[in-house]
């Protein structure tokens, strides 16, 4: 694989860019692999990458029904943060965030990680207390955050109206090294690196059945034939229940549409990511200049990548209250993805009732920020049977009543 660099680009510029090769290979499936990952989104590709990089397991296929990165990886609002309250969450999200810091160099592919800072506004006394609690927790978790004053909020984000008569900004939970990254590049960068290690990424290949013998997985049926494997990882987000159903078990998950929208691009006016939970809105500005806005989830199950329009209206009116300038912008495009939500709204990274089969799902609305950490921990779980990063995210927690509930601090959404 050609190394990416400014010199490579310059060299290619002199020969009409004829020397660039495929970013990832497009191989024919083999009859068998050591590991099959179902789902070539960020989490699936990252899992494959760390299986290879950390455990030397490279006889791996990542099977994708559509095109890689085409699910929630390519549909989210790209916020990266790790200022979570509960220890298990903070651990995996901070692992992810710290891996994002060096991901471009690690993958030799610019994922444009931009640690521009993430702030979560406190607009009620209850939220102040919740975020202060999170700040204290973060101080013991090795997550660098602080609770900042309204004046500092205004300084960091001048377009914000902090004196809103309805919900004045009383402060914010600030993670200076949170930020965003280019979502497609994360998928493409991992795919490129996986392909480079000899792994097979099989796009437009749909899994239609899961084969088992004696309680262990033996392979999968696909639209391109049967493929055997020794271990199987399911990483298909919104469709987790559908795939689990093929394997014969049920998940504590419901699939619901989540929506987002962007404005037309404008010149830079916002250098931080802002989340306002009281009014349910979050916003950042992409490098292109679009204001990227996250909406809410529908309250009913659906597999349509659309969602109900009124959620956007609610989000936009909240943002106009917080950022009056938004009123004069225009909505360019809105879209939806299907997110898989668990009973405690925390993810599942777990062994399953089927032997040698593992599941990584339930990221709900917060998956993108976790991709490297999720891949790292899930690869370890698949390779070794256990990982401190995933230990608390097992399927067994629902029976025991041992939940990882992030909403407790201040009703914080992802």
């Amino acid at each position: 694989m050609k190394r990416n660099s400014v010199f490579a680009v310059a060299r290619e510029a002199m020969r009409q860019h004829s020397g660039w090769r495929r970013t990832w290979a497009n191989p024919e499936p083999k009859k068998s692999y050591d590991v099959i990952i179902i789902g070539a989104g960020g989490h699936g590709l990252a899992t494959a990458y760390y299986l290879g990089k950390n455990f030397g397991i490279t006889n791996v296929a990542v099977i994708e029904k559509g095109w890689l990165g085409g699910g929630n990886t390519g549909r989210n609002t790209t916020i990266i943060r790790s200022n979570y309250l509960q220890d298990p969450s903070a651990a995996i999200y901070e692992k992810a965030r710290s891996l994002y810091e060096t991901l471009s160099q690690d993958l030799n592919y610019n994922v444009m990680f931009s640690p521009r800072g993430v702030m979560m506004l406190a607009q009620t006394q209850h939220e102040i207390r919740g975020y202060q609690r999170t700040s204290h927790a973060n101080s013991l978790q090795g997550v660098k955050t602080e609770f900042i004053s309204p004046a500092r909020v205004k300084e960091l984000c001048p377009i914000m109206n902090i004196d809103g008569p309805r919900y004045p900004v009383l402060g914010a939970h600030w993670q200076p090294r949170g930020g965003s990254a280019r979502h497609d590049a994360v998928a493409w960068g991992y795919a490129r690196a996986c392909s480079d290690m000899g792994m097979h990424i099989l796009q437009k290949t749909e899994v239609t059945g899961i084969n088992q013998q004696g309680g262990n997985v033996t392979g999968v049926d696909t639209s391109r034939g049967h493929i055997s494997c020794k271990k199987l990882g399911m990483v298909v987000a919104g469709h987790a229940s559908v795939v689990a159903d093929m394997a014969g078990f049920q998940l504590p998950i419901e699939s619901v549409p989540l929506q987002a929208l962007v404005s037309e691009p404008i010149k830079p006016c916002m250098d931080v990511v802002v989340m306002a939970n009281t009014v349910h809105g979050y916003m950042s500005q992409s490098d292109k200049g679009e204001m990227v806005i996250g909406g809410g989830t529908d309250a009913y199950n659906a597999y349509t990548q659309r969602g109900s329009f009124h959620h956007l209206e609610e989000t936009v009116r909240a943002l106009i209250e917080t950022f009056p300038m938004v009123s004069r912008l225009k909505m360019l495009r809105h879209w939806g993805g299907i997110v898989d939500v668990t009973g405690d709204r925390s993810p599942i990274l777990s062994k399953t009732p089927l032997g040698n089969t593992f599941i990584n799902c339930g990221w709900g609305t917060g998956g993108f920020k976790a991709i490297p950490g999720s891949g790292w921990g899930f690869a370890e779980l698949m390779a070794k049977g256990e990982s401190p990063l995933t230990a608390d995210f097992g399927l067994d927690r629902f029976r025991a009543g041992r939940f990882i509930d992030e909403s407790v601090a201040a009703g914080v959404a992802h």
Partner: protein
Amino acid sequence: MSTRLANHGRLINRSKAIKFTFNGKVMTGFEGDSLAASLLANDQMLMGRSFKYHRPRGVVASGGEEPNALMNLGAEGHFEPNARATTTETFGGLTATSQNHFPSLEFDVGAINSKLARFLPAGFYYKMFIHPRSFWKHVYEPIIRKSAGLGKAPKARDSDKYEHYYHFCEVMIVGGGIAGLQAAKSAAATGVRVLLVEQTAHWGGRAPVDGATIDGISAEDWVHETVVALSACENVVIRHRTQGAGVYDHGYALAYERIADHTPGDGRPRHRLWRVRCKQIITATGAIERPLSFAGNDIPGVMLASAVRDYVVNYAVSPGDRTVVVTNNDDAYRTALRLKKAGLDVPVILDARAEGGGVLMAEAIAVGIRVELGRGIAKVIGSKRVTGVQICAQAGEGAVLEEIGCDVVAMSGGWSPVVHLWSHCGGKLFWDVDQAMFRPDPDKPPLGIDGAGFVRVAGLANGHLRSASCMVDAAIQGTAAAYNATGKVKKIKTAEAEDAEEVPLSPVWLMPQGASYKLRSKAWLDFQNDVKVSDVQLAAQEGFESVEHAKRYTTLGMATDQGKLSNINGLAVLSKALNADIPDVGTTTFRPPYTPISMASLAGEARGELFQPIRKTAMHEWHDDHGADWEPVGGWRRPYAYLQSGETTDQAVWREVINTREKLGLLDASTLGKIVVKGPDAGKFLDMMYTNMMSNLKLGRCRYGLMCSENGFLSDDGVVARIDDQTWLCHTTSGGADRIHAHMEEWLQTEWWDWQVWVVNITEELAQVAVVGPNSRKVLEKLGGMQVSADALPFMAWADGEIGGITCRAYRISFSGELSYEIAVPASRGLEFWEMLVEAGAEFGVMPYGTECLHIMRAEKGFIMIGDETDGTVIPQDLGLGWAISKKKEDFLGKRAQQRPFMDNPNRWQLVGLETLDGSVLEDGSYAIAKGQNANGQTNTEGRVTSTYHSPTLGKGIAMGLVHNGPDRMGEVLSFTKIGAPPVKAKIVSPVFYDPEGEKPNA
């Protein structure tokens, strides 16, 4: 140069000249102009700069598909960035400035990017800027960000108003061209309710420009007659300046009405968002002309052939003096003929088809226009304006045969139906090879509530390019939609249309077909985002084979026009590069809205005062008048404290605590939920709802109760009063009333529907005042009425009566640890009662107090607060509330959950009091630090603070918290985190800090 012609112009009113400014320069236009037309009339072809390379950009289209002519419009509270000049109506006083350049439109330093273009191919940023690591955030990204973006960020607050409108009809038709009008006529004939919307200010679409004949009269006249006829129908609503912006599930559609964009400040709402519900939708949205991909096709002066025609016919504006027409179809000949008719020069028509066209070509030749067949453009000459073209053979590699001077190139690569609305909700497309276009696949429509298709497409949008078949199709769709919506049928005569015969186009995806890399790297696909043919080819070379990958890698179609001009051309280039058929490569998904709609219209009326409802108690205004510092609590606002002059908030709170403990305090407790539960099974029901027993509560008595979710977690608390044999009154937390009421109804309706219980939420019926402090009885006795003595109304009892002449219910309950009454009166008399208490209480030292005082007093007593001590993970057992969990009951909501291993566990964190060794106040949310670290390197913890205050009563910090095995560790000293400072030592103590014997409330 571009200029205004002396005659004609079907949309302009020459008697009304209008002054406007562009980049500070005063210009003149006519009423009826689009801004783009006005600018062209003033010889302003250069209208903007492209996104990536900052190349000069002129207007290329005449409608919503325009990618280039984007403006900053207006100023201050009326400012709007990225307004399309083609869809902006010119009005007197309009101010526009061009975008994305520094220092000026004419000279833009950002244009250096254009010189560096070869180093900035598609996806260059993924391959560069990787080292050194910190440079992305601090060097590269800021430069890229500054160079990107288009219009300016608005600064001032929006000074316009907006609204929504819910509209119901059976058939909605989008598009007011001849197909939409015919479809409306056909549907309306059955009597069903029809809504017809048109995005521009004019009816008829392209037909009046292109000159069809309908029912023997001109299209212009037919359109006029039809609009008049439809307007007269009671069952028809027709609306121009209203765009069908999006189609959603179950017959929901958005129509975006731009009421006052062209009349700012006239008092009308600027935009109105129609939320339409209909049974059937017909999209008669026409088609968009495709550009041709040749080198230099982005130079100002290269325009769509149809747009050139529009400017001449509609606005009497000539984009230039000499226009070269280049085409692969017959339609562009109409442009040449129109130009000629207007007295303008058409030096040549370059028809890429070897065989050329039909009758329109013959007509062109007849009027003396030179037509060259099998020819195309090798390259356009010019920088900020076209100066000429180099002609080549389409079949070749671009060898120049001839150079011709011109200032406009009118190009036509064929037409693409506007299928966006069909696609929004899942409609699929098929590729029509003969017409080289994607068309809606009638077998795969968007599915409605009944599982059948609910969207139809009519006319041009359905692939009917000729007027005659377009009208037939529109009539069929209109009749069918009405029938599907209502079962009604009524056939009417379909208008018969005629226009010139055309021979088929020949697809041209690259001009010339063998263009060299050098030419391909100058052949634009996406004018705004600067995506060229070579970029898409590079994407394919690098394995971005899915159309979604190629789009995202190159940014093709991601500009503010969402690829209306570039998608099909880009797709064709990609298919070619992949050696695949176009339909096999597929299309990207069209997402709403069709063109960008204002954010403000989404919010509608919900801004400022109407942003969200504020729930107000009967005493709200009084609080406001007496210094209330408001706190939002579950939709309500409650006074946090009442500030007296010169006081800080803390001082006010402390004063309120001391005064209430020593004298008399009043709290507006109206926001507490009050729910009446009645029936033969009400006791049984409440025993399921609460963890404690309520069925055995004695008449006239009160009991503190806890509610848990089925998951076992504490969710609400409050005092329950037994009213009569079959009736209980349940108090909930503030803001909890609606939730708990719904929770009760849910269980009664869906689980125990055979139980005889009625529930009514009477929260809003009553105003409730907590009269608290050693003087509370005195003030009530002074007002006179019912007996409130210790004997007549003992602690945890209630009674009905009258105080100060107002009917009331008095509860002897205390959340402060003081002698205390809560008095409920009809809400209409709440203010009167409150003011009576204030007046009568003056001699007893009365003061109102707010929520923070309430919190401190309850913390001093060790009472828990839902939301502080609980967070959705806490069970009553954690809070020392085991006494409130009935051991006798077999079942209650949450009981089974609390038997799970993680909950029925002595190792849980439990409630204690905490006192710092130095009397300071622990920080909110502080954690107790335990030894060591966990497997993920996080410091272990053994407890946390749930409530912490300075107690003015005790003169020191007090706190409540949950600590591992806390109640067994009294007196132990723990270390608590302090942000930015060393840990603070605090001792575990009883959570009851004040009046531990509980004598005061019993007084």
